[in-house]
């Protein structure tokens, strides 16, 4: 569906790489050629000239040499409206960087077409063109020019750039004497003062201290409010969900998902953790368990009963398990353990309802544990499940990280964040009741 006011249109973009291209360009070539004079070197030369003169690189012998090529990107199409911030996420080697490099005109696509309507700025590394021997001031000019600023523009903004980077005193020191923090700040300051209509940014926010990252994110937010369009590749899901309305998940060179940033980030996190919001086992035989009890399904649900993989931090989360008791007369207990994406166990919980502390009949049961809203921190959450009997104590089911979900904070208030939209650590995120009492007027007030 074509957009009327699209800043970026990408249609069927694809990039094919020749496997081994890199290796063939290295030193060994001359040696090989000399070592295999005669027929071998003739065919080598033929291959070389075919490669240099072929009409379409990568298309010279269709079909027959498919194994020599890989598609780093295939059939990628999307439109980005003016003023939209789009996060591009996905595992390493999925084609995100290739996509960005094509849009930044660093490398050519093999097929397809992209249109960028507006002045384009791309930041694919920290300190593009920086040279250690040059001073901060000199590097600001060099980097600014390479990133697309005109000299007159840099002249005008130089003081502002040095101030933003907080390196005014070191403006005339070669950057090789800078601390890494100063270097990164200067690099960002230059980049932040680009005024492109379309900004293409790669992962650069992964470096630098937290305060400066904050400053850069704010600057990006500024840029957005000026109606500028940003394409932002990142591994930082928290940054993507906070900054972007929309995210595109690229995996194995194709777009796997395109939608709201929170949903796409959740899907990506869960798929990278190899889990989903729901697992079911259709047949009794294949289900985890034994002849006493078997787990038939487990899912993450919201209060409306819908299976969800992405939840608002303020809402309750239901963990629902369905199991089948095959042998009656056992006193069963359900257990859940919840951990975060780093594998840290947040808590465990068991069903202690006295109503079911008695031998159960055979049949199907559904047990749900409710995690209150404003309790889990943002990020991915993994759930492990166990079913045990007492007297004697015995595990019948024990499945690690069987389902997962993702908690996001839409920053609409009502969460522990309050007004703060920056880094917010902690394993849990309770919204606590605070009380403050007024005790006395300022220090000068007379004692009562």
């Amino acid at each position, binding site marked *: 569906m074509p957009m009327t006011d699209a800043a970026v249109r990408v249609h069927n973009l694809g990039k094919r790489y020749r496997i081994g291209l890199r290796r063939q*360009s290295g030193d060994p070539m001359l040696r090989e050629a000399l070592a295999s004079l005669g027929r071998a070197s003739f065919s080598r030369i033929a291959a070389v000239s075919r490669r240099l003169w072929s009409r379409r690189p990568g298309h010279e012998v269709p079909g027959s040499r498919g194994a020599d090529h890989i598609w780093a990107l295939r059939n990628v199409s999307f439109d980005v409206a003016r003023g939209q911030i789009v996060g591009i996420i996905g595992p390493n080697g999925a084609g995100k960087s290739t996509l960005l490099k094509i849009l930044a005109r*660093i490398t*050519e*696509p093999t097929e397809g077409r992209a*249109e960028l309507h507006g*002045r384009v700025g791309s930041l*694919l590394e920290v300190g593009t063109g920086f040279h250690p*021997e040059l001073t901060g001031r000199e590097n600001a000019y060099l980097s600014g020019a390479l990133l697309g600023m005109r*000299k007159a523009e840099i002249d005008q903004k130089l003081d502002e750039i040095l101030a933003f980077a907080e390196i005014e005193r070191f403006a005339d020191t070669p950057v090789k004497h800078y601390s890494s923090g100063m270097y990164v700040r200067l690099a960002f300051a230059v980049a932040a003062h680009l005024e492109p*209509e379309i900004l293409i940014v790669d992962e650069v926010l992964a470096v630098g201290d937290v305060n400066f990252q904050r400053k850069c994110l704010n600057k990006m937010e500024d840029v957005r409010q000026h109606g500028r369009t940003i394409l932002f590749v990142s591994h930082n899901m928290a940054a993507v969900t906070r900054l972007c309305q929309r995210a595109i998940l690229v995996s194995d060179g194709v777009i796997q998902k395109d939608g709201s940033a929170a949903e796409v980030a959740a899907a990506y996190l869960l798929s990278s953790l190899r889990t989903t919001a729901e697992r079911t086992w259709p047949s009794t035989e294949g289900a985890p368990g034994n002849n006493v009890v078997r787990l038939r399904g487990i899912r993450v649900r919201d209060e409306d009963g819908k299976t969800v993989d992405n939840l608002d931090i303020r809402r309750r989360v239901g963990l629902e398990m369905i199991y089948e008791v095959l042998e009656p007369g056992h006193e069963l207990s359900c257990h859940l353990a919840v951990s975060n994406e780093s594998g840290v166990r947040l808590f465990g919980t068991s069903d202690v309802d006295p109503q079911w502390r008695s031998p159960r009949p055979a049949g199907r049961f559904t047990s749900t544990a409710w995690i209150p809203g404003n309790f889990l921190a943002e990020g991915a959450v993994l759930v492990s499940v166990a079913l045990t009997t007492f007297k004697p104590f015995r595990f019948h089911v024990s499945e690690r990280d069987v389902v997962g979900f993702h908690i996001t904070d839409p920053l609409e208030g009502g969460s522990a964040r309050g007004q703060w939209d920056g880094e917010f650590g902690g394993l849990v995120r309770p919204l606590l009741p605070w009380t403050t009492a007024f005790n006395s007027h300022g220090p000068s007030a007379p004692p009562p």
Partner: protein
Amino acid sequence: MSDEQSEDVMIGGGSLSGGLGASESPSRPMALTVIEPSRGWVPLRLVELWGYREVLYFLVWRDITIRYRQTVIGMAWAVIQPFMTMVVFSIFFGRLAQIPSDGIPYPLFAFAALVPWTFFANGLTLSANSLVHSGHLITKVYFPRLLVPMGRVLTGLPDLGLSFAVLLGMIWWYGLLQARPALLWLPVFAMLAFVTALGVGLWLSALNVQYRDVQHAVPFLVQVWLFATPIAYPSSLLSGPWRTVFGLNPMVGVVEGFRWALFGTGTAPSHHVAVSALAAVVILVTGAFFFRRVERTFADVV
């Protein structure tokens, strides 16, 4: 093809035309960048190249600044290199081998040729390796890649100026300095050296990205070319038909031209120089088109 070209022109005009105020103005026509696979021979996009002239300026400025920042005697190196070669040539070719020098002192004869030659040889070597050494830029930011080898050759201009000043000093020292109208031809010959260095540099730098063998072959090429050019010896040693074949080497025109302009040796620029110039332009134009053709793979291979 033709519509692709017209859009390309808009990139050159649009992407660099927006200043602070201009980018806010809604009436400004929106720059459009079209990204498509290129096929076969592609246009040189000279308009876009012109739009990026400030980038070229900064690349040249960077190279010159860095080159001398950490050296003790700085720019003196620009003179020492041709000067020492001249001393060696004077001893071995001038004194020991008694090679004729068209009636002018051998050191002057050799140095007048070595000044443009050094500019050419350094420009050629630096530009041949330029893309390989600029991998960190080529894979991270877009600008017309032609600027890389071009900037490398231009980096030698201050050196050329300095060693030329030393050359004038030497001529004065020998008492041969005189204002001759032929001196006005010198920039033309320097230009010819520039065009040749850039033309060969474009071919070699583009090939070097794919085949690193090139960087090993370059010093050898420069050495052979040195002796294929009448630097240590006068071209008057060669007879009739050989001289025309010789003229296909544009550096023959440059070296002969320098000597003619400075000392009045040989003949005024004639069809020999025209052949040299034509050869240089052919190398430059074919080099530029070859470069543009293989440019699409640079970032993937370098």
